[in-house]
């Protein structure tokens, strides 16, 4: 429906929704956009351990662009973000669909898939670190079982370490993605599924052609949430690799944090945050635009 269910009537009815929405909107304006501006300003200052409001021009950006570690972080975010989002999405959807097949023990399995979100990564990170560590975890175990040639040393390999972050990230988030999709699946009117069955579609095709497209709003939510997790993947990286070996698995969030809080380079931290936001805006705003324009007719 392109029309609001009811629009401009008595002035109160007309204003009520806007009025109710207003606090959230104001909070967003102040606490998101206000802070972005604040941060933007900081990125043009020489701030060190505390904010400082002297104007310093583009110096922080110059330093940032010269910083090798920053570029590694950006590249890693690209790898991590796309893999993490893609795999979580695929796995989450698959699990949701499978769980929707009236599985025995659905409740138990669902909880198993969900629990990683429940545990703080401060410590589950340690467990992962052990499991992925060649000398302690999987590789060691395989060797003990007699598979001497088995190697799995991504954690300690500069080129592969970012992928271990993907593994742990997927582990942590795909269960929630599953929950989102499952809730969506259970909201679908099953008469259209029936119609598709009669139309001769096999189960996989029903999902692929009818149900999954109907989940479009859920995809939107999931994508947003995963992107949000990917960008904020701070705990994950810190607990698993601390950005290492070297800074090979650094991501912008950890970069920003160490600059702004550990190394007393708030100005550069702010500049990196602005760069990140700008990149994101370039990616996300068009998506938001198309998605919301579509939903009007949905």
């Amino acid at each position, binding site marked *: 429906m392109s029309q609001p269910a009811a629009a401009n009537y008595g002035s109160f009815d007309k204003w009520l929704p806007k009025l109710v929405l207003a606090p959230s909107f104001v909070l967003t304006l102040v606490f998101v956009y206000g802070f972005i501006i604040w941060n933007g300003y900081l990125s043009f200052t020489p701030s060190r351990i505390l904010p400082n409001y002297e104007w310093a021009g583009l110096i922080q950006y110059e330093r940032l662009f010269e910083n090798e570690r920053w570029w590694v972080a950006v590249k890693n975010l690209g790898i991590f973000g796309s893999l993490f989002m893609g795999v979580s999405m695929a796995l989450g959807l698959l699990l949701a669909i499978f769980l929707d097949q009236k599985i025995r023990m659905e409740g138990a399995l669902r909880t198993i898939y969900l629990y990683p979100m429940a545990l703080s990564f401060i410590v589950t990170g340690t467990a992962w670190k052990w499991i992925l560590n060649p000398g302690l975890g999987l590789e060691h175990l395989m060797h003990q079982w007699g598979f001497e040639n088995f190697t799995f040393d991504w954690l300690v390999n500069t080129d592969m370490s970012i992928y271990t972050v993907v593994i742990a990230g997927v582990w942590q988030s795909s269960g929630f993605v599953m929950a989102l999709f499952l809730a969506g699946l259970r909201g679908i009117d099953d008469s259209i599924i029936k119609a598709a069955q009669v*139309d001769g579609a096999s189960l996989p095709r029903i999902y692929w052609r009818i149900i999954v497209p109907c989940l479009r709003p859920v995809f939107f939510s999931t994508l947003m949430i995963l992107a949000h997790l990917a960008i904020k993947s701070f705990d994950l990286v810190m607990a698993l690799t601390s950005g290492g070996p070297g800074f090979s698995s650094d991501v912008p969030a950890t970069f920003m944090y160490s600059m702004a809080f550990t190394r007393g380079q708030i100005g550069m931290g702010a500049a990196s945050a602005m760069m990140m936001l700008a990149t994101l805006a370039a990616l996300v705003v068009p998506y938001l635009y198309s998605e919301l324009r579509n939903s009007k007719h949905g």
Partner: protein
Amino acid sequence: MHKENEVGALKIKHVRKSYGGTDILKGIDLEIDAGQFLILVGPSGCGKSTLLGLISGLEQTTSGEIWIGDRMVNNVAPKDRDIAMVFQSYALYPNMNVKQNIAFGMEMRNVPKAEQEQIIARVAKMLQIEHLLDRKPSQLSGGQRQRVAMGRALARNPGLFLFDEPLSNLDAKLRVEMRTEIKRLHERTKTTVVYVTHDQIEAMTLGDRIAVMKDGIIQQFGGPQDIYDNPANMFVAGFIGSPSMNFILSTVEKTQEGVGVKVESGNKQFVLPLRADAAAKLSSWVGKEIVFGIRPEQITGTVNIQQDNPHITKADCKVEIVEPTGPDTLTFINLNGKEAVCRVHPSEAKRPGERMQLAFDMSKAVFFDPSSEARVA
């Protein structure tokens, strides 16, 4: 759209269906040949849609067997039953536009793209939805949605069509056109059809066979005219025909000429003589109460009648209510204390309160046992 072998014959054996504890279908037996057109009618909630659900395989029978052609299909998946269905609730795919909705079933069956286009064009033309092909279901009116649902089924070439009130949201004109189209289609393709409808005309004109259901039980199964003329019981008699048959509780009496039923209207009494065959059957009922059924079109004005019809009795009655429907005026009178409808030509119609000479044509009157409601003559 032609089928080689007789895949479409449908046989339903002792089928039962319950939801939770409630029995919805209580032992249905039906059998039609390939190429026949079966109409399901019955009051709302009697289980028609449920029966279609079972035939399509979307619902599971609680017990009993369903045969399509020579296969027992109880354990065959819906998609392998070679069925096309129009759902009462349309069930359009909300994510697809009209064209994609129609194409989907063909795609699933790997119909070549060019052929799809051609079929879509033909179906859309027939259903007059060409200008809607790019719309999403949410942008359609009720009748337009229903036509798309219809189009989805018609685009296929199945062994069996299931239609659940496919024309209920269409206007009369379009409905007549669609009805004719369906009839043509059926005559051309000879595909077996099971068709649920509430429309008397659809039921009478489309069906080879009609099954009248009530509360999950089939009351009568037969040809349309046969059911109309020879209803098996009061329920069928009352259900088929619109306006309904008038049921008048009266007493069977012996008259000079033979046997008749006594009727009283507006303080005047008269006896309607029975035709010979009925009189013979009712000889044992003389003096007893009986329900006598007469359709509205069998009580008419006295002008436009076959004056020499021996079964016609004229009587003077008081008009209570008058309902002009266009071609006819429904005139309500009181017979034996109960309201009865008569179909009168508008030119003859009187106004409420006036008296009117009416002709009772007893040649098709039917008689029921008041307690069992079964037909006795």
